[in-house]
């Protein structure tokens, strides 16, 4: 191999602390190197032209550029090589900027280290082989996981863009958390009036196939060609037949079923439809409370159903969907606030969550929009709101800010005043976080127009006094302890990753943070991408978000999917593992450790061998370090390439 080395000055970025001419001179002595020079800006147009000329003049068939990090310009120089007619993988970079010139000023040591890095790069390059991408077709359909407002937006945008969309929702209806809200800030418009039409659009869109009451069971495949197994959970109702007339719900004698939609404020029927605007509007039986399923008695629903949709023997059903991309939009769940002993730990009925309060405020809620405290159904006059319950609190492992609680608490004080004009709201807060269009004005209005009493400080305890509760806390601005008699206490409970989010992350092979929120590809530049090609994020699954941000991210994710699908063929990354069939003994250790199921056992002339499915392999190389006989080698990072680097620097 004839190697050319180009040592970049990067203006003074490198040249300032590295003698690039000396590095080039030293490089000429390295095995394989036939040409070396320093260059002002290797990545500039004249710099790249210089590389191309040198390739032609010196008949180079390998290039080392010593400059910045390969994460920056490796793609640039690979294209340069291609323009000169060389394979893009006959190229190595020595990172002498981020790893040398920028981290120390000792010119002698830097120059020496730079030469060493070039020596390593050249040694590896000698073992490089041309690699070629394969083109593979894209399945232009997308799966959206989660039917909250972010997922709905993503699904609608994709569907309107002409893509087939599979929307998977774990509950029996889409709508997510937003469907439970009464009003939204800062406009105080009705949540279901905003969301309802979107939900109907989903139901009616010819491009959207909705699987409600379903979950992701298994994900196989890769960008462009995912194969996803979906579990359709048993609802005991044939949804093809069910018309959502609600007769079964009306006649069902079992009234004690847990009402999850109403945040357990009330109970519901064993067969139910969560709310009138549900999409799909289909009934589901809660088997724990159904007398027919539990005791083989009753069966009233089956008798009254005009379309004979009830099926007590229904089982979970598994279907497989083939899609080219996935948008995860699994949203959030509320922190389990009962860990706070100071708020009663759940033993006082009149301490409720903000989401329960929303259901109470909602005209379609269990109290039909009347605020009634759970203990005795009386209308409260003094309502205390406590913020940052499970947010910004290291002691419960939730150091982050949930972002939207300040705003919805302000909204709830306004709604409280609207519902009960002679009421008084008190808010214990840490800081008010209200960046956003019209947000700060909104919190001001809560205080100034609606007279909410904001107290800066934490609550140390809540204790019962007669029928009421006493909230004791600090007013840190006054420097005093305060005690407030409360008829009702509403906790602004923080958001955490939704139940099962981490399981889904593992199935999708995406990362998640310490709190279970999914990791974006880059905190600034790739906010809806993940590090797994073809998987995108929308909404609060990536971190707590309010409605406008969730909707924006839903649209952003959709635009990424549409962009991906604007190509008919995708190019595969050839840096994948390859099995040397001669060396493979078929022990299957690579199959066992591959995180992607990218290696399968094949029969080769009666012998067991491993075989890598090129398009599934992600190029991690776990197989290569697992295989005892080195039969499976990750291309571009083979044992010999890494050993060459080791040998180049450890010279006995």
């Amino acid at each position: 191999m004839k190697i050319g080395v180009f040592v970049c000055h990067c203006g003074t970025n490198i040249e300032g602390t590295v003698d690039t001419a000396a590095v080039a001179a030293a490089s000429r002595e390295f095995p394989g190197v036939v040409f070396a020079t320093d260059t002002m800006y290797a990545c500039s147009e004249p710099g790249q032209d210089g590389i191309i000329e040198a390739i032609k003049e010196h008949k180079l068939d390998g290039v080392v550029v010593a400059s910045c990090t390969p994460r920056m310009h490796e793609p640039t120089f690979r294209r340069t090589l291609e323009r000169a007619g060389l394979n893009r993988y006959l190229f190595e970079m020595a990172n002498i900027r981020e790893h040398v010139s920028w981290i120390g000023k000792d010119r002698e040591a830097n120059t020496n280290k730079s030469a060493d890095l070039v020596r390593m790069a050249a040694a590896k390059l000698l073992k490089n082989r041309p690699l070629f991408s394969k083109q593979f077709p894209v399945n232009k359909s997308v799966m959206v996981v989660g039917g909250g407002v972010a997922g709905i937006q993503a699904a609608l945008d994709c569907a309107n863009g002409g893509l087939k969309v599979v929307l998977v929702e774990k509950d029996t209806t889409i709508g997510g958390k937003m469907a439970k809200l009464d009003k939204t800030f800062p406009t105080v418009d009705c949540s279901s009036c905003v969301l309802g039409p979107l939900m109907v659009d989903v139901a009616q869109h010819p491009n959207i196939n909705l699987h409600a009451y379903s979950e992701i069971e298994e994900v196989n495949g890769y960008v462009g060609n995912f194969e996803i197994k979906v579990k359709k959970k048993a609802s005991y109702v044939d949804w093809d037949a069910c018309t959502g007339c609600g007769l079964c719900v009306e006649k069902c004698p079992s009234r004690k079923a847990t009402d999850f939609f109403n945040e357990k404020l009330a109970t519901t029927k064993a067969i139910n439809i969560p709310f009138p605007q549900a999409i799909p509007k289909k009934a589901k039986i809660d088997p724990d409370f159904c007398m027919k399923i539990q005791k083989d008695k009753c069966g009233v629903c089956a008798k009254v159903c005009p379309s004979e949709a009830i099926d007590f023997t229904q089982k979970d059903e598994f279907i497989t969907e083939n899609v080219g991309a996935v948008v995860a939009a699994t949203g959030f769940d509320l922190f389990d606030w009962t860990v706070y002993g100071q708020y009663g730990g759940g033993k006082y009925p009149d301490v409720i969550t903000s989401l329960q309060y929303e259901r109470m405020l909602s005209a379609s809620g269990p109290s039909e929009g009347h605020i009634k405290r759970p203990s005795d159904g009386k209308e409260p006059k003094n309502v205390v709101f406590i913020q940052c319950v499970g947010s910004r609190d290291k002691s419960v492992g939730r150091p982050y800010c949930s972002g939207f609680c300040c705003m919805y608490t302000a909204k709830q004080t306004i709604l409280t005043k609207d519902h009960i004009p002679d009421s008084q709201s008190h808010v214990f807060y840490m800081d008010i976080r209200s960046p956003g269009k019209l947000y700060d004005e909104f919190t001001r209005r809560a205080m100034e127009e609606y007279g909410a009493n904001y107290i800066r400080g934490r609550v140390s305890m809540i204790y019962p006094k007669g029928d009421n509760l006493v909230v004791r806390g600090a007013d840190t601005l006054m420097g005093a302890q305060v005690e407030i008699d409360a008829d009702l206490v509403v906790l602004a409970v923080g958001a955490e990753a939704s139940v099962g989010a981490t399981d889904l992350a593992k199935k999708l092979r995406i990362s998640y943070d310490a709190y279970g929120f999914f990791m974006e590809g880059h905190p600034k530049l790739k906010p809806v991408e993940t590090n797994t090609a073809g998987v995108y994020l929308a909404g609060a699954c990536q971190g707590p978000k309010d409605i406008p941000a969730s909707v924006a991210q839903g649209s952003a994710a959709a635009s990424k999917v549409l962009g991906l699908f604007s190509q008919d063929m995708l190019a595969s990354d050839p840096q994948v593992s390859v099995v040397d069939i001669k060396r493979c003994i078929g022990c299957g250790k690579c199959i066992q450790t591959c995180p992607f199921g990218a290696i399968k056992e094949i029969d080769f002339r009666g012998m067991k061998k491993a075989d890598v499915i090129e398009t599934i392999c992600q190029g991690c190389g776990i197989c290569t370090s697992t295989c005892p006989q080195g039969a499976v080698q990750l291309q571009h990072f083979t044992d010999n390439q890494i050993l060459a680097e080791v040998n180049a620097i450890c010279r006995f």
Partner: protein
Amino acid sequence: MPILEGKELRIVGFLCNWCSYGGADTAGVGRFKQPTDLRVIKVPCSGRIDPLFIVKTLLAGADGVLVSGCHPRDCHYTEGNFYARRRLEMLKRFLPIMGIDAKRFEYTWVSASEGQRWQEVVTKFTEQIHELGAAPKIVGAEAEETLKLMEAAL
């Protein structure tokens, strides 16, 4: 040439592409000053690092080897660093029987955003190796000779 005699020791780093190599870049962008001993070998994932690379490196005369990958659960390939953690932990425990001080090898996790942390890790590890001094070398008369032959054969 490889190291500056009397000034540097031979320290080799194996870094995963997605987190730690990025973390080292972040440290560079932040101009976080670091000792010059370390030479980095980039691999896609800490799961790619066969512990035998490290043994090979140490037997070939390195004074220290540092491995860094994504924090557990953050692996780009989901599971690579989990495998790496087990394998590298075994290596760390194994080295003493060879007569190699276990402190000559460390493995840790640095994310792409942790430039500051990378600076601390490199600085501390380099100091640790300098405290131990140069590792005993396996010298042989034929070593340099062989090397020349190997290079000529390429």
